[in-house]
């Protein structure tokens, strides 16, 4: 039996469609029900929806053998897992954004609002810039508008939300997409089945 952790939400649905197209289907999974666990007994697979941010935890601790997680979450949590495949879906970028009229004063400590404190810290450490991190759980665009922060570090897909709030991208930090990760120990004992999944997902 292979246990698969999928991220609840839009990215997870995209990833599930990849699985389904590769022959790994779970009946009922896309129905609007409250079930969390789905089994395909024929293929001996079980899959479950978890919060996107929690996928690496389930995999690292072995509750799931494999999982699909956004690269943003992997960079933020830095789990001890294998990253076996770029699923090439859910493309977006991690970026620094600020108000259209923002001018950086390098002598000031930069106030950074973000959902990704570790990514932000690593990025600004690599530039040698001192920052003050403000960790928020969403609606990041508000922070610079209300003067809570100078900049935000956030995921940018099309940039529409930024534009609507009079914000602009200052720098791109890294490209993001969904990745297939595996528990290190589980991969030792189920490598044949996991490699088969990878082969089929990666045409």
């Amino acid at each position: 039996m292979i246990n698969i952790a999928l991220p609840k939400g839009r990215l997870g649905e995209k990833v599930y469609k990849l699985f389904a197209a590769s022959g790994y289907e779970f009946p009922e999974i896309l129905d609007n029900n409250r079930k969390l666990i789905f089994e395909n007994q024929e293929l001996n697979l079980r899959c479950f929806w978890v919060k996107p941010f929690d996928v690496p935890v389930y995999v690292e601790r072995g509750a799931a053998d494999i999982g699909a997680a956004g690269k943003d979450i992997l960079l933020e949590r830095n789990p001890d897992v294998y990253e076996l495949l770029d699923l090439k879906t859910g493309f977006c970028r991690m970026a620094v954004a600020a108000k259209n009229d923002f001018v950086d004063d390098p002598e000031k400590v930069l106030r950074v609002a973000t959902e990704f404190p570790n990514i932000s810290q690593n990025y600004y450490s690599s530039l040698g810039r001192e920052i003050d991190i403000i960790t928020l759980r969403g609606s990041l665009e508000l922070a610079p508008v209300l003067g809570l922060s100078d900049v935000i570090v956030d995921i940018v897909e099309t940039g529409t939300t930024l534009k609507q709030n009079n914000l602009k991208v200052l720098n791109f930090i890294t490209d993001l997409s969904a990745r297939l990760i595996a528990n290190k120990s589980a991969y030792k004992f189920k490598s044949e089945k996991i490699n088969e999944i990878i082969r089929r997902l990666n045409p």
Partner: protein
Amino acid sequence: MLKMRLRPEEIAALNLRELYEEHNYLFFRMSRFEEYDFYAGKKDFLTSKSILTFTDINGKLMALRPDVTLSIIKHAKNSDGIQKFYYDEKVYRVHKNSNSFREISQTGIECIGNLTDENINEVVELAILSLRTLAEGRKYILDISHAGMIAELLNESENRNEILKLLSEKNIHGLKNINAPEKIIELAKIQGNNDIENLKCFEPIIKTLRKYKNEINIDFSNINNLNYYNGIIFRGYIEGIPESILSGGEYDNLMRLMGNKNSKAIGFAVYLDEVRK
């Protein structure tokens, strides 16, 4: 009768001690603390950089042992021959997920001195036999890698740390993205036991690798600490236990740092707390 009252990890420790006794390893008992200065210059060799300290009655800063190997090398008498020790101790480290100090049970062996290939083979074999003892019928596997070989390939690279991270994740798409050397990508792809005859770095232990062909897995994503290890490194897994429970390798670098220039060393530790989970 006595064994019935012991916890599973205590029984496991006794079984391992029996195994090491059979192979003429001597039991090594040591104090739970050392002077802090002893560790200060050797942090590169420690898994967790934080050390639990306290002040002794005479004002000296002491440390609760974060590592057994350093103490064994320090206290082993400087002799020309080969010394074989095993231990069953607690170490004090910061746990990755809890951000606080933990007491960790560790059993293991160290083989130091004028080592021959014979000794190296014996330690690798004992690692496999330790896993067999702990597995109690479940499947187990010893991942084998070579720190020297990885370090050599990385010497030319500027983004060494980035490559190491990707290699440890088996992240082949990531290695390709940053244009890592082709040889590293080849290394990242190796798994299973088909390549044991072709990899020169494993020549000294080829005898053991052949004998236990189905219990080993060549895997260069097992990097561990390249400051510490310089030769063969290995890591053991048991089916159903999500973390590795055995880790070790050749660490001649450490012997050099401790002033034993001509000595070699190999050893491993078994993390018995993982067995119980």
